[in-house]
């Protein structure tokens, strides 16, 4: 592996871990409100898959999307400020944690209704195909989302019209408190693509390099005009579903087992063992990450609130009754 890439993976994952910890702290302090879904344990999925993307590729993600947003290039400042609901946030404070957007970075949002990412992604794919563009759209979704009708409806249309969509399942084995064997008859999500003739593949979602390699292959397949593909990343979340959930429905043993496969720690150890990185470099990253996160929090704290509640309800505001002005 290239040293530069290994360093990047480690930086991204360490930043992700620190960032989410800071978000949890800020939530406890009352600076962040609402629903907050954190990503620790799943870092290798967003980092491995999105580091394989081209800048022109689009991303459609769920409400658990802070890390996707940052890897796609939205600054930690803009993400943290959005969690704080500030005007400097990537959605101007109008979206919050579950609705991160960045037009320039082609980050088409976090969607908080489970199963919405599918139709949005095939819509982007349809447009790309119709206009002959070579970009790919990433469609993230959870294991629970695979039970929505939109999943099957969209797989069908994506296959039917050979749309350039890369479906990425973040299978963390839980749909809030319902374990996967209790929520789907076919817990291998990649196999759900069979009736639609879409290639599906399962990859170790705790291994950033494996996710990266699998994504590169999948992107090549999709970009070549072969239609969609689905990658199921087998992963785990260390925290509860959201800040409102302690995760008490999982056994301590289960969590312990998965902690032993911590994607951040295991990759750090491997990178050291393989000689991709040195201890001193890791210490540098550690410091850099801490500073970046502290800066993001400070930036969010000091940023102003948005002040126009009626803004942007309509692209073309009007004053008639029922308008926003």
């Amino acid at each position, binding site marked *: 592996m290239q040293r530069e890439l290994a360093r990047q993976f480690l930086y991204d994952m360490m930043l992700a871990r620190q960032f989410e910890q800071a978000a949890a702290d800020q939530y406890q302090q009352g600076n962040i409100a609402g629903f907050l879904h954190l990503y620790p344990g799943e870092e290798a999925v967003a980092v491995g898959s999105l580091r394989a993307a081209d800048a022109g590729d689009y991303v459609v993600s769920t409400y658990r999307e802070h890390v996707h947003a940052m890897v796609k290039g939205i600054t930690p400042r803009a993400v943290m400020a959005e969690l704080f609901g500030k005007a400097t946030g990537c959605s101007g404070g*109008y979206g919050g944690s579950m609705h991160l957007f960045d037009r320039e970075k082609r980050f088409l949002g976090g969607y908080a209704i489970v199963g919405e990412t599918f139709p949005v992604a095939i819509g982007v794919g*349809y447009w790309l195909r119709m206009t002959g563009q070579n970009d790919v759209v990433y469609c993230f979704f959870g294991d629970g989302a695979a039970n929505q009708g939109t999943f099957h*409806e969209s797989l069908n249309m994506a296959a039917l019209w050979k749309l350039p969509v890369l479906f990425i399942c973040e299978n963390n084995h839980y749909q809030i408190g319902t374990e996967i064997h209790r929520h789907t008859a076919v817990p291998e999500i990649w196999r759900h693509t069979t009736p639609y003739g879409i290639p599906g593949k399962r990859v170790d979602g705790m291994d950033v390099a494996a996710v990266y390699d699998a994504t590169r292959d999948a992107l090549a397949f999709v970009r070549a005009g072969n239609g969609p593909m689905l990658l199921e990343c087998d992963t785990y979340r260390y925290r509860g579903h959201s800040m409102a959930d302690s995760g008490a429905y999982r056994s301590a043993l289960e969590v312990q087992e998965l902690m032993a496969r911590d994607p951040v720690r295991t990759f750090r150890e491997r990178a050291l063992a393989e000689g991709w990185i040195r201890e001193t470099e890791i210490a540098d990253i550690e410091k850099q990450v801490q500073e970046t996160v502290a800066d993001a929090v400070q930036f969010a704290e000091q940023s102003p609130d948005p002040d126009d509640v009626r803004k942007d309800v309509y692209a073309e505001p009007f004053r008639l009754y029922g308008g926003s002005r």
Partner: protein
Amino acid sequence: MRSRHANLGHEPVTVRARELKVWEALNLALDEAMAADEAVFILGEDVGLYGGSYRVTQGLYAKYGEWRVRDTPISENSFTGLGVGAALVGGRPIVEIMTVNFALLALDAIINMAAKLRYMSGGQFTVPLVVRMPGGVARQLAAQHSQRLEHTLLNVPGLRVVVPGTPQDSYWQLTQAIECDDPVIVLEHELLYNDSGPFDAEAEPLPLHAAAVRREGRDLTLIAWHRMVGVALEAAETLAGEGIEAEVIDLRSLRPLDLPVLVKSVEKTHHALVVEEDCRFAGAGAEIAASLHEAAFGALDAPVERVAGLDVPTPYNGLLEQASIPDAGAVVGTALRILTPRV
């Protein structure tokens, strides 16, 4: 704004000032918009090869090909959501939902996504999506195929809801809806598609959300849209025989509502009656009446009333079906009662 008279590259469907049917006017609007802008595309069930359930997309598949006139599987939520996704990145999709009844399966895409994405993204994205849907009580299609969805769609900030009823308005408003950068729901009435009416491609269009006075009068304002405009006009004719001059306003748009036109009329007539096909309880008429009371209470000599559909699922039996929606007789009866001075 794009020219409404694109070079269609074939014998034009229309000549200046003539009669057209509603479906033909809609078809013409689609054809011109597609010729003028390659970002415009249509999708829905049977819109392509089949030509559309009400012929609205007839001929377009042959002309523009399958990528721009896309026959979809029966997956309303996902193909409407597909429209949302495409709109986010530069497309100008026109989704046809076969009838409003099936739009209930697409409300997530319409209400949770299309209506909110601009706001939630802090204004970064626009959703120039048009969703067309035929609806209303047609002829004995029974309860699941005879609904109106105004009540649900009106209460959604971010959506625009228009209700063209004439060929001219159908052409103008669909054209304007396609040009609009906001999601626009175009409600069409199944019984109006074959209505003929005067059509002038050169006439200066009314704004998308303007209400239109269809008949002037001094005694009472009848407020209606879609097929109920015809009912109101018929009632006005009868009332004229009794010496009562009713003004008939075709709303053309339900959100936003052209309240100034209503207020102006009521300041003249001092009486208003909403004629609505949808069920009475919590329908659009309730909003119209309430807002008129707020805006023009001083001008009103009597409360604004409603003649509306009964609060029942639409029955199959033809006689019962007719009894479940307003007719001119009911409008006349209520109008006379409103105008009878109370002692």
